[in-house]
């Protein structure tokens, strides 16, 4: 990529704003820093070992209720399994449901082919290949640049409109753009 007159960009870049955070940001950082030692300390808390007698008590308690608890667990598991199976069979698919409806196509909302303005602009550009006196004027060049900006915007809009457009707002914008392009073309034609 070649860059012409890049010094203008570089100069402007040196003049960009510098921003400063508010004072309260340091206070928030400070609060977090104050908590760091506590967070560190909680990671390093001591571990304690229980007495062996406690395990003996737990074991005793466990064996008495083991068989009773086992029965309850088996029953619970069966109920759960049956519920999941039922739900799985009954629930619809997780992704949202797709609904279908119809809408009539309004031919007035469909973008046409290449605008007449673009054809005329291309004709002017061809003219400028041989007649450079007018076409090299700054005001003519400016109009050309502006037309090309609008043309690009128009192309982007047309792409967004696509096929089967149903949005009047987008067509309104396209019409307005075409009108602006026509105005510029008229100005360019007057200069020639």
């Amino acid at each position: 990529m070649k860059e012409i007159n890049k010094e203008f960009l570089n100069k402007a870049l040196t003049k960009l704003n510098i921003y400063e955070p508010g004072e309260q940001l340091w206070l928030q950082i400070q609060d977090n820093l104050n908590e760091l030692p506590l967070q560190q300390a909680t990671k390093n808390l001591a571990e304690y070992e229980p007495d062996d007698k406690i395990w003996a008590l737990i074991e005793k308690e466990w064996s008495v209720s083991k068989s009773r608890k086992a029965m309850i667990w088996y029953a619970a598991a069966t109920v759960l399994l049956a519920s999941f199976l039922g739900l799985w069979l009954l629930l619809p698919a997780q992704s949202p449901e797709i609904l279908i409806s119809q809408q009539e196509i309004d031919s007035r909302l469909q973008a046409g082919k290449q605008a007449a303005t673009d054809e005329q602009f291309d004709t002017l550009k061809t003219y400028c290949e041989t007649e450079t006196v007018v076409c090299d004027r700054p005001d003519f060049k400016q109009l050309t640049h502006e037309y090309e900006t609008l043309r690009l915007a128009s192309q982007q809009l047309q792409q967004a409109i696509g096929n089967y457009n149903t949005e009047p707002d987008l067509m309104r914008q396209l019409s307005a753009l075409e009108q602006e392009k026509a105005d510029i073309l008229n100005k360019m034609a007057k200069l020639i």
Partner: protein
Amino acid sequence: MTSESELIADCLLHDRTAQRLLYDRYKKSMYTLAYRITADFDDANDVLQDSFLEVFRHLDQFRGEATLGAWIKKIVIRKSTKKKRLVIWENIEDHSQESINWGESEINAAHLETAILSLPDGFRTIFVLAEVEGYTHKEIAVMMKISEGTSKSQLFHAKRKLRSMLTSG
């Protein structure tokens, strides 16, 4: 002025004054960088806070391969792009034959600022890293986990879009 090594040594001892000094030394440049990438002051606040906390937590891992500022900047860039959930798709196009003309007169810095902030996130990030922060495409590729070609392509598109926003008078 305290030297960088003295500052780091005091910060490692959790000296609050030293930490404040380090923060003050870099806060403007890092906040500005965070804001340019996120284009949002609240996000920039969050990024700056997270970044400096990481700096103070992991300062013992700073080995001095680069300057402290460069090390902090990488953290800020990583946090900023994560904040924006930035995803840059690999897209290598050859723009070597194309040119961008920055106009015939000075560019208004305020307009440039607005235009930069109006760029799409991906374009803006690459532009800021390359043109404002001065990273090479190789460095950007490593930071953003993309290819050099994609970095160059993104920069071209960013500049083209910027240029179109900054119509010359």
